[in-house]
C-alpha cells in the first residue's frame, strides 16, 4: 500500500515533490508566513518565561529525557507495573502492524463499530485509520485539522499544525462536499460546523483512540496535551479507550512533568501551557459515573529500539513540538512536510526517517538541510540535529548509498585540501574548467554533478584569477 503523501514509492526523492512546491508561490507564502509567525512567537514566549534561564531549562529537559532513555528498560517496566495496578491493560507492539492488530483484537472482542480518534503521530506511523476501516470500523479524526485532512483524503504536513498547507477555501469546499454543510469561508463558521458534526460522532462512538505526549513511569499515567479538547471527549465517552504510545514518551515521575509542559506548549504554539493537559491513570473507578470501562495502552517500538543505539539515542528525546520545522529554511522552501515523503518532516524527520526506513529509501533527506543550525537552537530538548544530519551523510558514504561519482569527487576534493600546493592546483583546474563552460559570464547548463544547480539557476563563472594570485602580485608591488 503506497502512494499517499506520507507513503510514497521508494526510494523517495525529495525533488519529486519539492520542485512543484518551489513553483507554487501561494503555498510558499502560506507556509512561510505560518512558520515564521510561530518561530518568532516561540522565541518571545520562552524569553518571557525564562529569560536568561532558557538555555538551562532546555538543557535540563534534555537531560531528563536522556536519563530516561539511558534506563528505558527500567522505566518501561515501571510504567507497565504502575499502569497495570491502576487497571490499565498494557500491550507491547514490536511494529506498526502488530500495534494495529492489538487494537483490532480489542475492538473485535468488544464489538466496536465506531471510533473517534484524537491526533496521534504514532497512529500515522502504523496507518491505523485505514486498518480500522478495512476491518469495517468507522474511524473519525476529531482534531479539526486532521478531520479536514481526512475529508480531503490528504495527509498532515506538520506535526503540530497538520493542515498548514491548506487555506480556508479548501476547508469550505471539503465541508460542503463531504458533510453537506453550506459553503462558507469564515473560520468561525467552519469551526462551528465541525463542532456540531463532531458532537454527534462523540455520542455515537464505542471506541476512543488517542496518542499521548508523555507517560509517567512512577504512576502509570498517560498525559495528553490538546488545545481543542477533542482528546478528552474522544476518550471519556466511549466504553473503550486505547492509547497508542511510542516508548520514547516516558518520563520518570510526575514531578518531572512541569519542565516539559512548560517547554512543549511554548515551543509549539507559544502558549504557556496547552488548554487541556489530560492525565489519565486507569479506566473509570468503581465509584465513578463516567469514563471508559476499559483502558488499554499499546507501547509501540516500530524501529525505536534501533534509534536507541548510543549514537542516535538523543533523537528519541524529541517531544514533537514542531519548533525545528518552523525554523527550518528547507522545510519552508519545500512547501511543508509532504516533500519529505514520511510521517515526520523537517529536520527531525530528515534525520529519523532514513534511520527508521533505510538510508537507501530516503537518500535525499540527510541533505535536506543547509546545516545552518537553526533547528539545534530551537530544540527544547537540545537534540544536535545538524550533527545527526552530518552523521547520516557519513553513513551514506560508508554504506555506499552515495554514488561512486560523488564519492570519487569528494575524495579528490578532500585530497586537494590537504596541502596549499594541491589546493592551488585544484582551484586552478576548477577555474579553467568552469570558465570553459561559461558564456558571457554565466554557466547556463553544466554537466553532472553540477546539472542540478543549473537546472534551477545560472552559475556565475569564476574570476580569471584567484584572490590568492591577485594578492601575491599586489604584495610584489605589481598592478593588482
Amino acid at each position, binding site marked *: 500500500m503506497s502512494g499517499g503523501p506520507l507513503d510514497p514509492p521508494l526510494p523517495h526523492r525529495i525533488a519529486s515533490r519539492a520542485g512543484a512546491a518551489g513553483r507554487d508561490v501561494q503555498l510558499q507564502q502560506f507556509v512561510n508566513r505560518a512558520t515564521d509567525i510561530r518561530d518568532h512567537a516561540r522565541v518571545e514566549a520562552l524569553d518571557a518565561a525564562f529569560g536568561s534561564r532558557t538555555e538551562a531549562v532546555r538543557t535540563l529537559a534534555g537531560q531528563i529525557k536522556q536519563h530516561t532513555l539511558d*534506563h528505558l528498560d527500567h522505566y518501561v517496566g515501571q510504567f507497565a507495573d504502575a499502569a497495570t495496578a491502576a487497571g490499565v491493560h*498494557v500491550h507491547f507492539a*514490536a511494529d506498526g*502492524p502488530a500495534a494495529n492488530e492489538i487494537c483490532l483484537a480489542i475492538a473485535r472482542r468488544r464489538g466496536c463499530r465506531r471510533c473517534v480518534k484524537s491526533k496521534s503521530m504514532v497512529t500515522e506511523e502504523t496507518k491505523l485509520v485505514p486498518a480500522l476501516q478495512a476491518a469495517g470500523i468507522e474511524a473519525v479524526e476529531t482534531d479539526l485539522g486532521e478531520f479536514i485532512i481526512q475529508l480531503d483524503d490528504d495527509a498532515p504536513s506538520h506535526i503540530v499544525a497538520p493542515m498548514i498547507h491548506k487555506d480556508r477555501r479548501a476547508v469550505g469546499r471539503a465541508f460542503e462536499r463531504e458533510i453537506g454543510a453550506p459553503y462558507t469561508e469564515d473560520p468561525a463558521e467552519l469551526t462551528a460546523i465541525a463542532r456540531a458534526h463532531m458532537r454527534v460522532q462523540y455520542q455515537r462512538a464505542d471506541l476512543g483512540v488517542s496518542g499521548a505526549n508523555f507517560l509517567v513511569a512512577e*504512576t502509570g499515567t498517560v498525559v495528553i496535551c490538546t488545545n481543542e479538547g477533542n482528546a478528552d471527549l474522544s476518550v471519556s465517552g466511549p466504553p473503550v479507550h486505547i492509547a497508542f504510545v511510542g516508548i520514547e514518551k516516558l518520563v520518570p515521575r510526575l*514531578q518531572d512533568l*512541569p519542565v516539559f509542559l512548560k517547554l512543549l506548549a511554548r515551543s509549539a504554539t507559544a502558549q*504557556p501551557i496547552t488548554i487541556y493537559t489530560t*492525565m489519565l491513570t486507569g479506566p473509570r473507578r468503581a465509584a465513578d459515573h463516567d469514563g471508559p470501562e476499559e483502558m488499554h495502552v499499546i507501547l509501540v517500538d516500530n524501529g525505536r529500539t534501533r534509534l536507541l543505539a548510543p549514537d542516535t539515542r538523543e533523537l528519541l528525546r524529541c517531544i514533537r513540538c514542531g519548533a525545528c520545522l518552523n525554523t527550518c529554511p528547507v522545510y519552508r522552501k519545500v512547501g511543508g512536510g509532504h516533500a519529505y515523503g514520511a510521517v515526520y518532516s523537517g529536520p527531525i524527520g530528515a534525520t529519523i526517517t532514513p534511520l527508521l526506513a533505510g538510508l537507501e529509501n530516503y537518500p535525499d533527506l540527510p541533505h535536506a538541510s543547509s546545516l545552518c543550525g537553526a533547528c539545534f537552537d530551537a530544540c527544547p530538548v537540545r537534540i544536535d540535529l545538524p550533527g545527526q544530519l552530518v552523521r547520516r551523510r557519513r553513513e551514506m558514504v560508508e554504506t555506499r548509498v552515495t554514488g561512486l561519482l560523488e564519492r570519487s569527487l569528494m575524495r579528490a576534493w578532500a585530497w586537494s585540501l590537504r596541502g596549499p600546493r594541491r589546493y592551488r592546483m585544484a582551484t586552478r583546474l576548477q577555474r579553467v574548467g568552469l570558465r570553459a563552460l561559461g558564456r558571457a559570464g554565466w554557466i547556463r547548463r553544466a554537466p553532472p554533478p553540477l546539472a542540478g544547480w543549473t537546472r534551477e539557476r545560472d552559475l556565475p563563472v569564476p574570476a580569471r584569477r584567484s584572490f590568492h594570485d591577485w594578492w601575491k602580485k599586489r604584495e610584489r608591488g605589481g598592478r593588482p
Partner: protein
Amino acid sequence: MSNDTAPSGPGLSRDVFVARIRAQLDASGPPGPPPSDSKLVRRVEDGADLVAEFASRATEAGMAVETVSPATLRAQLASRLDDVKRVTVSMSPGPRRDAVIDVVTTLGIEIIDWRRASGVLAHYDADVGITDVAAAVAETGTLVLSSGEHHSRGAFMVPPRHLAIVPRAAIVADLVDLLAAEPGRPPHERPAATVLVSGPSKTADIEGILITGVHGPGRVEVLVVV
C-alpha cells in the same frame, strides 16, 4: 506480575519487549534519581499574591475571572445564570454545593442528574457545567479537575459554558507545586482522570486564526472565592 509477561495476541511478551530495549543499553538495573531542578523550572514563588497572579494569567488565557466573597457568591451566581435553562453540577458535597443547588433551584433552572444518566452523554443537554476544582495554578491560570464519585468528566467539557468556583486555598503557585511528589499514593488510588484546563477550547488549524469553542466550552468563567 507473572501473568503480565504472557503475550497478548499479536503483541510481544513484556519480557521480550524489554529485552530488546535492554540489548541497546550500556547499563541496566535500577537507575539513580533523574536530573531535577525545581528552582530552575519554577516561575511563581510560593509567597506571591496567588489570587492576583491566578486572575491575571487566567484572564490572559481567555477565561472570565471575578473575585467574590462568600457573602456575594450567591448573587454572582444568580446574575450569571440569568437566561439559563439547564445545568449540570459537578461538585463535592458540602455547603458550597448546597449554595449552588439552592441558587439554581430558586431560579427555576433544571439540574440534569448526570449520576443517573449514561456517562458524559448527560451533559450534552446542559447550557452550563458548574464545577468546583481539585486545585488551581496561579502560574498559568489553570483549573485542575479530577474525576470521582462526585465529579464528572463531562461537566467541564461538554456544555458550551463552564463555570468554576475556586476557593483561594485551592490555588497553588506553580505547576511545580501541583505536580510535586505525593509519596505513598498508589496508582489505583489516584483519580482516573485529572485535567488541567487553561482557557476555553481553542483551535488555530484554519490559517492560524484563533477560534474558541471548537470541541470543549467556548466560555470559561471563574469565581474566585476569597
